[in-house]
């Protein structure tokens, strides 16, 4: 016979356990439903023609090639600017900085940046990059806005992996008379490669998914330029919609839900790829560091 206290404890245990199963299940179900719903609605609209043609009001054709090109351009420009800036800041903080208060200040600034909502980045990006620096509404202005947004991410991942660089390696190099830059170049940077790559992948994920910050800085044109160097440089200086912005415009302003869902399928695919990539990098370097 179980006493009443014991029975009470048993029931409570059961309740808490079911709450946990229920909530975990719910979390997974939400994702499965989201993916399933988007796939069911969107896959039928996907075709080679859809992703390799441009929209035309004359023929009524809707294609997303310009949006894909814009997305790739924004991604490339952002990462090219972001990489040296973010890694540089992280290296400064962990290798060079001697002033404790300055380190605290930079840390605090990064923390503030990571909390600012993207709509505010969009507004200030519009004021600063588009109007003050006279870049107009352009992919370049959008990319630079995204750089500021993603600085904290790449700084954090790089710094985390800088912390794990063995002290002995650094000290050995200094002991052999290497200058600071040489130590950074030959020891520190190669050792924190995993953090840098992870930061890039995470930033790429955020850049691919961002829309509010791009709406006012990069605009929503669907023009396609030639793939020559001058064409690409021209495209960077002119306005254009990325995939996410195009999805928003098609769904909310034009009511082309089929198109929106097809773009959503592509975005989901990219999100899965980004996550798998991040996992793979983590796994690869974990194995390497263990050996």
């Amino acid at each position, binding site marked *: 016979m179980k006493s009443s206290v014991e029975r009470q*404890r048993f029931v*409570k*245990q059961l309740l*808490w*356990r079911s*709450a*946990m199963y229920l*909530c*975990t299940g*719910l*979390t*997974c179900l*939400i*994702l499965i439903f*989201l993916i399933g719903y*988007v796939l069911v*609605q969107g896959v039928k609209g996907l075709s080679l023609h859809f992703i390799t043609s441009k929209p035309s009001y004359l023929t009524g054709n809707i294609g997303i090639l310009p949006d894909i090109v814009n997305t790739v351009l924004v991604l490339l420009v952002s990462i090219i600017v972001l990489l040296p800036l973010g*890694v*540089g*800041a992280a*290296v*400064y903080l962990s*290798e060079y*900085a001697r002033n404790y208060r*300055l380190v605290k*200040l*930079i840390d605090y600034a*990064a923390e*503030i*940046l990571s*909390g*600012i*909502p993207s*709509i*505010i980045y969009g*507004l*200030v990006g519009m004021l*600063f990059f588009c109007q003050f620096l006279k870049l107009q509404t352009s992919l370049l202005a959008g990319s630079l806005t995204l750089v*500021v947004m993603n600085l904290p991410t790449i*700084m954090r991942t790089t710094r985390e992996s800088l912390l794990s660089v063995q002290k002995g390696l650094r000290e050995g190099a200094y002991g052999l008379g290497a200058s*600071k*830059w*040489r130590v950074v170049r030959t020891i520190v940077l190669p050792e924190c490669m995993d953090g840098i790559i992870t930061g890039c992948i995470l930033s790429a994920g955020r850049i*691919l*998914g961002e*829309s*509010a910050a791009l*709406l*006012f800085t990069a605009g929503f044109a669907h023009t396609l330029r030639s793939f020559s160097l001058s064409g690409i440089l021209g495209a960077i200086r002119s306005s254009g919609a990325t995939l*996410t912005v195009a*999805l*928003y415009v098609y*769904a*909310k302003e034009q009511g082309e*839900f089929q198109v929106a869902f097809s773009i*959503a399928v592509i*975005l*989901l695919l990219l*999100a899965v790829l980004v*996550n798998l990539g991040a996992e793979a990098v983590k796994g690869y370097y974990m194995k390497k560091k263990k050996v």
Partner: protein
Amino acid sequence: MGKVMDRVMRGFFLLCGLVTIACVLVITIYLILSGLPAIAEIGPVKFLFGTTWASTAQDPKYGILPFILTSIYGTFGAILIGVPVGFFTAVYLSKLAPEGVKKVVGFVVSLLASIPSVVYGLVGMLFLVPLIRKVFHLADGASLLAAIIVLAIMILPSIINVSITALDAVPKKYEMGALALGATEYETYFRVSVPAAKSGIMAGVVLGVGRAIGEAMAVMMVAGNVANMPKLFGSVCFLTTAVAKEMSYASGLQKQALFSIALVLFVFIMLINLALRKVMAGGEKTNEK
């Protein structure tokens, strides 16, 4: 040669470090400079506590109380739904789940975090909004409720991830001790581990508040965007959506007022930041004891 290079690189790295501070300064200064004029012109009390927003009317009115209240109610609602779900999931994943389940659900959570907000908005707009309309027999399902549900889902990953980190950091000996004294699983994890990880879990909640109050696109697609005082089943406009919706065509005082709304939003975010710092600092102190 080497010495010159060394100097140059030191300068470069210092510059990179300073860029972060410069960005924060530029953002703050721009928001204040472009946000204050309209507040001064309209009058701070009229602006913050006025209950009508009619920026395009003949006699324009700029009262943003509906936006402020909607943002607060919406965030509160999202927290009310999102926190319990996230909390239980986090405890399960951190304490009970077998390794395989942990990996799979962990991947699910990080995938949820990286789905673009417009995709949430799209599914909300075409699935959730019609569903709400049908279930509650409304004329239009685009409402505060729809926004709350979408936001609750969107903040789940932050809450789960931060809470798991906090729960994982609880010293194993606490749990061993409790179990050895005959406590059941639930007593151990909810009466011992959770209180020990309290500040970390709180940090997750505060982070979720920040995410929810700052989200624009998904909310814009499901909330209806009419500047009403908040009603659960009414079309509403958040601080973020008020800015995003009118920015593309606004001019003059209307545009300046939009920047003022952004400034108010920024102040909210800074307050949340301070709260986050406080919570984290409190956690560090208790851990040191």
